[in-house]
């Protein structure tokens, strides 16, 4: 009884352990080659890592079910440093064959394990057409799909030909825009030869005119591909992303790879093993991947002013640490540019900090992932600034323009405009106010940093209404506007011509000419003086004096009495001395004309008169 109990406990322990292990995770999956050829059988396996039952396979609609399911189990247990690890697999194997070309899906299978139902993944299988009949008999063997390259038992010289092994240059696009990513891969195609390895003697082109972004090299896996009527094993040898840096046709030079092929030789020394296994030799072969020309289109015109070379699809996110801080406390604006495209060439947009902010160089963090579709990821930019002056400030939006390839147009992203309220910090408040009481704040001139055109006119505008201009330059009406006033003026002149003549200033003319006439008279008098014509002399002297006075004082000759003259002169504020002198000259000239007088007297009166006229000329009359 005791023993039985012991055994039971042991059995319980073991089963428990089994279940413990099974508890980990039930993994139930289907496996099949991705590509198969029509008519060649392949294996579809379902694997589960625990004991299971009630396996239900899906229906194989597009494939012929040749055999299966065969069940096989395997388990292993290992102790490492006292730690036990064990694994268990249960495999169901089907042998199927593809009936027609195309891509087909085999639905999931179901199984019961650990008391619950589990479903496997479905598999997609591409069924390739068989080799075209032109291909030699060797292709018969090639139809057998395998994850390993097939060995050939044919004549080696025939096998290592261009049809059997070559490298293609595969680009996903040949017409692209500037800065648009191209995926270039060198793909090895081989059929009927065995590629042992590649030497280091690989010559890749320069990729001049491109920015190269190499992809992480995956483990080389072979795939079956139908190309030019034959099924080849293919392997991608090298992949890279290329970003064209200028427009135009850019040529990528051919690349060279050196492969080591295992080929069967006709051995000279024949042994029983040679016959059985065949004998092989390694042969080096240079394979050339053809060059390719990429047509790069220029980016369309109409680039936004802030465009700085971004091509792809991006989004912009921004945040600010705080919108209300005290002076001398830092503010951080975080800008997150997410997307895919030429992320690495994206320039850091600038934040236009207002005056009074001490800005520091932005901190840029890049998290990029390179995949076959291009570089994608996040570029985080942190802008740090310290406000030094209190007040309300607006930080203009940060803009990022890029060319969207999908939409084929420029897109501008913009962060929101931040309004900052900077309060006066406490620590410098006391100090600055104390200082400001004694010091005038430093004056700053308004300085212009940049120049640009002025903004467009935005005043409300209406289409002008067509109005005929009444008067245009050079038209008769225009000249009439000169002629009509002129005619009016002429008419006025004619009508009032009498008054005009009366108004004509004769007195003024006489006034101006007075001295000239008087001097002329004095000259004649002088002539008479030398000849001794006394009467004429006095006559001239008197006339000179009288006409001079008459002209200067605008008195008619008839009113020229001595009293009259004296009175007018007195009115004009002339010295009495001068008035008496005038009186004297006039009376002397009048009197001496008919009285005897000497030459000296004549000389004297001449000088007196000349003097008087000079003096009067200087007076304002």
């Amino acid at each position, binding site marked *: 009884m005791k023993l039985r109990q012991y055994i039971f406990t042991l059995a319980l322990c073991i089963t428990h352990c089994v279940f413990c292990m099974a508890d980990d995770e039930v993994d139930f999956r289907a496996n099949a080659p991705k590509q198969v050829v029509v008519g060649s059988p392949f294996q579809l396996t379902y694997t589960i890592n625990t004991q299971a039952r009630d396996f239900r396979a899906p229906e194989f609609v597009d494939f012929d079910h040749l055999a299966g399911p065969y069940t096989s189990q395997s388990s292993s247990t290992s102790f490492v440093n006292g730690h036990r690890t064990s694994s268990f697999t249960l495999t169901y194997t089907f042998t199927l064959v593809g009936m027609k070309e195309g891509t087909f899906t085999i639905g999931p299978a179901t199984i019961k394990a650990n008391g619950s139902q589990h479903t496997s993944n479905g598999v997609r299988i591409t069924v390739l057409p068989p080799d075209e009949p032109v291909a030699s008999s060797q292709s018969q063997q090639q139809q057998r799909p395998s994850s390993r390259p097939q060995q050939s038992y044919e004549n080696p010289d025939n096998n290592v030909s261009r049809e059997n092994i070559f490298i293609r240059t595969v680009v996903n696009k040949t017409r692209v825009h500037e800065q648009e990513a191209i995926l270039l891969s060198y793909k090895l195609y081989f059929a009927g030869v065995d590629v042992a390895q590649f030497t280091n003697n690989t010559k890749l082109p320069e990729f001049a005119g491109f920015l190269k972004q190499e992809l992480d090299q995956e483990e080389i896996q072979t795939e079956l591909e139908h190309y030019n009527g034959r099924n080849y094993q293919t392997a991608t040898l090298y992949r890279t992303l290329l970003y064209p840096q200028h427009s135009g046709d850019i040529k990528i030079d051919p690349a060279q790879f050196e492969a080591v092929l295992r080929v069967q030789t006709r051995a000279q020394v024949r042994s029983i093993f040679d016959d059985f296994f065949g004998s092989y030799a390694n042969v080096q072969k240079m394979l050339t991947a053809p060059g390719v020309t990429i047509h790069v289109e220029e980016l369309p015109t*109409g680039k936004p002013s802030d465009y700085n070379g971004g091509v792809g699809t991006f989004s912009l996110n921004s945040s600010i640490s705080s919108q209300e801080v005290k002076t001398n406390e830092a503010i951080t604006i975080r800008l997150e540019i997410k997307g895919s495209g030429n992320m690495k060439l994206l320039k850091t947009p600038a934040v236009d900090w207002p005056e009074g902010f001490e800005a520091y160089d932005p901190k840029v963090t890049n998290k990029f992932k390179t995949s076959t579709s291009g570089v994608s990821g996040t570029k985080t930019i942190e802008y740090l600034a310290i406000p030094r002056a209190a007040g309300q400030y607006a930080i203009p939006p940060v803009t990022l323009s890029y060319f969207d390839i999908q939409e084929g147009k420029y897109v501008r992203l913009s962060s929101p405009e931040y309004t900052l309220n900077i309060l006066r910090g406490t620590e410098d408040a006391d100090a600055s106010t104390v200082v400001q009481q004694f010091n005038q704040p430093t004056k700053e001139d308004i300085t212009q940093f940049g120049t640009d055109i002025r903004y467009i*006119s935005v005043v*409300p505008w209406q289409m002008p209404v067509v109005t005929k*201009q009444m008067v245009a330059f050079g038209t008769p009406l225009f000249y009439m506007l000169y002629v009509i006033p002129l005619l009016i003026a002429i008419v006025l002149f004619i009508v009032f011509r009498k008054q005009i003549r009366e108004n004509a200033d004769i007195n003024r003319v006489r006034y101006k000419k007075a001295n000239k006439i008087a001097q002329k008279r004095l000259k004649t008098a002088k002539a008479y003086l030398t000849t001794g014509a006394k009467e004429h002399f006095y006559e001239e002297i008197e006339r000179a004096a009288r006409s001079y006075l008459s002209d200067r004082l605008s008195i008619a000759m008839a009113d020229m009495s001595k009293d009259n003259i004296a009175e007018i002169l007195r009115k004009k504020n002339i010295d009495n001395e001068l008035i008496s002198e005038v009186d004297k000259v006039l009376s002397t000239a009048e009197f001496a004309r008919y009285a005897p007088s000497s030459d000296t007297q004549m000389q004297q009166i001449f000088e007196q008169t000349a003097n008087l006229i000079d003096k009067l000329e200087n007076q304002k009359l």
Partner: protein
Amino acid sequence: MKHVLYICIAVAACLSSVASAATMEQGNSLYANGEYTQAAEIYAHIIDSAAEQGALTRQMAPVYYNLGNSYFRCQELSQAILAYERCLRLDPRMKDARYNLQFAQTQIIDNIADTRNFFLRTWVTNLRNALSESIWMWMSIGMFSIFLIGAVLFALTRETWLRKTAFYLGLLALVISISAFCNATSLHHRDTLRAEAIITQGIVNAKASPDRSGTELFTMHEGTKVTIRECLGEWCNVQVGNNEGWIKLNCLERI
């Protein structure tokens, strides 16, 4: 029946004016959004429709100004300069346009050295360009009338101060009237001859004779203002600064 027709016409006119006002605003909002190419198209469309109606008056100046700004933003310097020049033709007193024209002219490559231009001559030309033809014309007519009034006053009054004032005022008015007339004539000639033009092609070589094989004399760049002296077929003789030469008509556009 006739009244109905008039109403129809009036309504149509109102609608068309509303539509064009809307397009101006449309252009402005496109410009504000940075879509300068589309904005330029809209402004050009407005100008075309105004030109069809023969309504290229002073009110069109802001449209030309906005067009110029749009072209400037599209980096089409010569078209921008052309639009600013045309804007100033319509409204010489538009300060923003003058400022932007000067700014645009700082961007062009050619530096025109004109030693013939005596400073007084430049001054007179600037004075002439400062006002429009019709303003000069009305100024001339008005000043001529003031001169005549002065002359009549001078002849008919006895009062010395009035005569003196009338005499000097009349003389001044006559001088202004004559110079205003000269300016109006000069502007009228400029606008009818349309001899001034802007180079629209990137680089133009001026030749000594109006044919392809002519000796190349000098090179001009986009945006430079030239004066057309005469035309012969598809060639025209232009003067720029101290130089003159023959270039093709399609390299330039008249203002």
